[in-house]
């Protein structure tokens, strides 16, 4: 996926929403900026398929040598798929954060949280200001 076409949470998750059989499916991952800032990843705990997630609540975690970070979902829904290849290939998060490094797919039940997301330009600006 092209980073320019994605939506971003202030907490550094990206999200792409697609319609499938009348349902809205969100693919969620971690931004390149976040991965670069974390460095030295050692572990990701994926959510469970079937798990309910609530907007702006942590639903999985990623750990680096230095610290553990919660991953938040910007929307409410149900996890319908997880990237099982990720835990043993953490480098994918850095090498292809918007493609093979996706984390989970969530079937959206309430998309109100989408309104709080940033487009690529606004997210870039946030990251630059953090520097």
């Amino acid at each position: 996926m092209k980073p320019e076409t994605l939506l971003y949470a202030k907490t550094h998750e990206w999200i792409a929403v697609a319609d499938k059989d009348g349902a809205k499916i969100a693919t969620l991952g971690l931004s390149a900026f976040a991965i670069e800032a974390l460095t030295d990843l050692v572990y990701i705990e994926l959510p469970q398929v079937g798990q309910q997630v609530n907007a702006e609540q942590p639903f999985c975690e990623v750990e680096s040598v230095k610290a553990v970070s919660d991953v938040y979902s910007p929307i409410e829904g149900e996890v319908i798929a997880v990237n099982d290849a990720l835990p043993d290939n953490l480098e994918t998060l850095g090498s292809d954060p918007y493609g093979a490094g996706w984390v989970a797919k969530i079937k959206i039940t309430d998309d109100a949280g989408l309104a709080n997301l940033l487009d690529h330009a606004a997210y870039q600006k946030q990251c630059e200001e953090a520097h």
Partner: protein
Amino acid sequence: MALGTQTVRIPAMSTLAHTPLHDWHAAHGGRMVDFAGWSMPVQYASIVKEHQATRSAVGLFDISHMGRLLIDGPEAAQFLDSILTRSVADMQPQQIRYSLVCNASAGILDDVLAYLAVIDEEKPPGYGLVVNAGNREKIVAWLQQHTANYSVEINDRTNDYAMIAVQGPKAIELLDSLTAVELTSMRYYTGQIMELAGVECFVSRTGYTGEDGCELICGADLALGVWEQLYDRAIAIGGAAVGLAARDTLRLEAGMPLYGHELSEAINPVEAGLDFAINLRGRQFVGKEAIEAAGKATQPVRVGLQLEGRRVPREGCPILRSGEEIGTVTSGTYSPTFGHPIAMGYVKSTASALGTALDIDIRGKQHTAKVVPLPFYERGK
């Protein structure tokens, strides 16, 4: 996700102190963070690569943030002997000693290195004290409070000098190329003044990584030139500049306590397992009675813990045995050398035997851990 301290950028109006090497770090990708009031590089790029460079070749560390005090005057030795858990009066020139400063109830105020400093052959020797950055003001005040009966002068010389650690299996080879002194003839925990990289430096065979190496103290205004010469040579032999994050993973693998984690005013030297840094016999110093009493009581014990899997226990994680909480993690990391999580913590003495199976509660989930010998890492093994 919350990115924690790693993305805390120092604001432009920052009042943080800068070491003489600050601008070099910032210009070389150092991620500058607030550490004890100093703007310090937590890492340059990869913590694991900096760690491995130190274990396999050589790491350069700016440790100028550490406090450097000079204790001078005719009764400097007697004065320090009334404060430090370990006597300094019998120290020989060039000798360095690790010691603790305790309060009257044996709580650890700091862990320090004491250096015998023969500055002027005509006068009694002074002592250098290197203290933790976060404890510097507290220790200076503590020392000042206890000077009444002694002819002694306490000078905080931190800002006059820079301090650089050169650590790793190639550290001595690197330093040898910059000085005429035969460094391999220097014993561990000794130091001397020498010309190094064209500059007068105090060079000691000390460190905080579990590797061979030295720590250098030189004039603040000369530090950049020394650092750049060290850096060019280090890079050529597979070394790296190393930030505070890898300094922490290195010391943790080496089983070394860190103030604010394994050491604090709530912990006494007996629990911390630092008996080697205490001389009780024939001496009087602040905290002595309380340390003696602690030695007779049943105390929690500082232990090393090893875990399977990849989830990392962090400071504050509860340690359990059969569901009962029996201790707390004080430091934990993923060990770059061993490829699994390691931790130190305090547990009840009945749960401290090597091989004891325990559980660590990491954010609500229990993970099996085993008590293992400290240090986790010993060079040459």
